[in-house]
């Protein structure tokens, strides 16, 4: 067992434990149906979180995710009303996400300002843009949206894999390849681990940073597309606070917020843990959303402390 897989193992253990706990307490919980629902409900956030994983691996952070999800939905809904095919508007929005992320990355590298503050401005900008497009919820009426929603692969025991979950898994597969089997991925890990060394080792800092944020923008736009199709509407407040969920999913998935260490696949389980918690709490009628937030924070705390211990006892992080 490699040390760097330990956090992923911890994440998977927590997920399994939560799932089994649910099964012990509630009838009908321990089924593929529940699993399918969790996958479907959280697909968009996991997709966005996958993009965030790259950004965090590179030592940065992206707060504009939630706004991007909202903005993509609103624009798609309006283009839908204007007669666009959802696939065409989706393609447009993916290109927009890519360009917007690249812009953020460029400003971060050029101004040498913390990514936090730039992407915070990005959050405001996109959320404001949502309101500028329209204030109310607009439905997506194109028949393709229904067709997309009806598309699923049934599981043996009554569950199903929805189309959004399939897109998510495909996006994850692509991300795994990018992160672990391309030179770009290797550079992201290097620059997140130690930017100064990485530059001395020949990693082009600006190109890598810009690409990372572009990738992050692309994935959050894809999350937005899936959210719009899944809810078949565009709502300017959609995705509010999702940046925090995405970051939490990344951290729960075992990626170090200091950058350079982590696995993209972990984010899937991190997001699933968050989804599982809210499902569990929904199953128990007496608990409420307070528990979702508190348990999310508590898990975050536990994982941060675990990471701290791993870094110091296994030399997982930087030596100094």
């Amino acid at each position: 067992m490699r040390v760097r897989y330990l956090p992923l193992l911890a994440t998977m253990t927590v997920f399994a434990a939560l799932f089994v706990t649910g099964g012990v307490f509630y009838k009908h919980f321990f089924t593929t149906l529940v699993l399918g629902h969790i996958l479907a409900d959280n697909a968009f956030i996991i997709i966005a979180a996958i993009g965030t994983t790259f950004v965090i691996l590179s030592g940065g952070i992206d707060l504009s995710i939630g706004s991007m999800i909202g903005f993509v939905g609103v624009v798609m809904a309006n283009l839908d009303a204007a007669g666009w095919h959802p696939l065409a508007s989706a393609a447009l929005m993916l290109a927009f996400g890519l360009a917007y992320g690249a812009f953020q990355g460029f400003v971060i590298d050029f101004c040498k300002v913390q990514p936090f503050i730039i992407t915070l401005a990005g959050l405001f900008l996109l959320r404001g843009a949502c309101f500028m497009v329209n204030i109310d919820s607009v439905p997506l009426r194109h028949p393709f949206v229904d067709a997309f929603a009806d598309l699923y692969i049934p599981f043996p025991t009554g569950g199903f894999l929805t189309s959004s979950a399939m897109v998510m898994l495909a996006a994850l597969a692509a991300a795994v390849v990018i992160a672990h089997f391309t030179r770009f991925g290797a550079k992201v890990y290097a620059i997140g681990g130690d930017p100064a060394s990485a530059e001395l080792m020949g990693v082009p800092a600006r190109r890598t940073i810009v690409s990372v944020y572009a990738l992050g923008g692309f994935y959050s736009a894809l999350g937005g597309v899936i959210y719009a199709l899944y809810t078949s509407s565009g709502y300017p407040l959609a995705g509010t606070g999702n940046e925090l969920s995405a970051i939490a999913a990344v951290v729960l998935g075992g990626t170090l917020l200091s950058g350079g260490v982590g696995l993209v696949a972990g984010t899937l389980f991190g997001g699933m843990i968050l989804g599982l918690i809210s499902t569990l709490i929904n199953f128990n009628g007496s608990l409420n959303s307070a528990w979702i937030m508190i348990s999310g924070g508590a898990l975050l705390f536990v994982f941060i402390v675990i990471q701290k211990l791993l870094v110091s006892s296994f030399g997982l992080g930087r030596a100094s």
Partner: protein
Amino acid sequence: MTSDQPPRVELVGISKAFAGVPALDRVDFTLHPGEVHALLGENGAGKSTLIKIMTGALAADAGEMRLDGRAVAVGSTAEARALGISTVYQEVNLVPTLSVARNVTLGREPRRFGLISWRAAREKARARLKRLSLEIDVERALGSFPVAVQQLVAIARALEEDSRVLVLDEPTASLDAQETRLLFRILRDLKAQGMAVVFISHFLDQVYEISDRISVLRNGRLVGSAATAALPQRELITLMLGRELERVEQRAAAAPKAAGAPVLAAEKLGRRRWIEPFDLVLRAGEAIGLAGLLGSGRTETAKLIFGAVRADSGRLTLDGAPLGHASPRRALRRGIAFCPEDRKAEGLVLDLSVRENILLALQTKRGWLRPLPRDEQRRLAEAMIEALGIATSDAEKPVGQLSGGNQQKVVLARALASKPRVLVLDEPTRGIDVGAHAEIVALVRRLCAEGLALLVASSELDEIVAVSDRVAVLRDRRIVGEIAGAEITRETIIELIAGG
């Protein structure tokens, strides 16, 4: 060496300044194939700058570089790599969070069908490491290995199949004797294959063991270059320690003063891998010099005495009473002040004003609840600015905007403002011009006359000779001798350093 072929690398008239402060001044450097060329000099002499220019990490302001007789422009580390120049920087410049295999292959990962083949990458890494007789788990994170292994991994990464020049900046700093032997064996192999090696080290024994030629830099200038066999160790040390202060008057009274009462005494004080246990007594009105080459333990001794670093053996007594466990705050409260060697990293808060920086230590001594009244702050700052001749338009200027010499004086002013009985100065004249240099030396002597107990660590031998009543000489992290009074001359100190 080989005179029938052109030198592998030839640097001619290289100059480089950082923000107006010259780091290199018309330096020439020649490196032949099949040669290990040692580059020596104190901290800040310009070694690192020179090799960074050679390896494309920095651009020179003036001068020319020739490779095998052809003029080349090396615009980036990648271009240097392509020309066959491989570098291992001083601190291991690899990414500790990545695995060994990834570190060795970063940017050059073997690919199949456009995707990285990690199996091939691991094989490549193992093969590279095997050349250095290193067999380790290449999938473990680099940071989890001892520094010595990391150092060898860095060399493995640097050594491409087509490397023609290998630059090693302090490669043995963190290696033990056996690891060093291994490294030297590898270097001799490479040498035999015609590799040209630049070897930077402060271990003179090692330099004499491995190098064919030695060049010495001091204050950004080349002060000497000779075949190793033709350069006796004594002469080398003389070159390295310089004669900057020839015009500064020598001590007026050579006769040892009547020493005051012991103030601070170290008994068997030491710390593993830091400095061997030593005894040292500081007396009121007496200046003690700490002399030695780079890496001999000067800074370490000074920091241990101040309490910036905790000792793991022995004890410190102040006026005969044990000092308990050390911390900067405790030391300051007891009247011990310290001026660190590295002004920017450890001395000053650059964004704060001159006044605030001067105030800091005194304020710590008083505690946060008893702030020095504004008027007194201003008076103190102005008094210090005047007493030390700090060139600043006013006390409210951010200290980062002052010149190096004036910054150094601010550090000194801060220590003095806390009204210490014991003052520990580490390299008080590092990187400042000759005028300020003489002023600071004069100041130190005056302070001493006023009854302060002084400890001065310095790489400038003449400075030590000029200020000290007693000198402790360090070598290989050990105090190897103590001399006083008329014995204090350049020659006796060099003798002790050279291992007489």
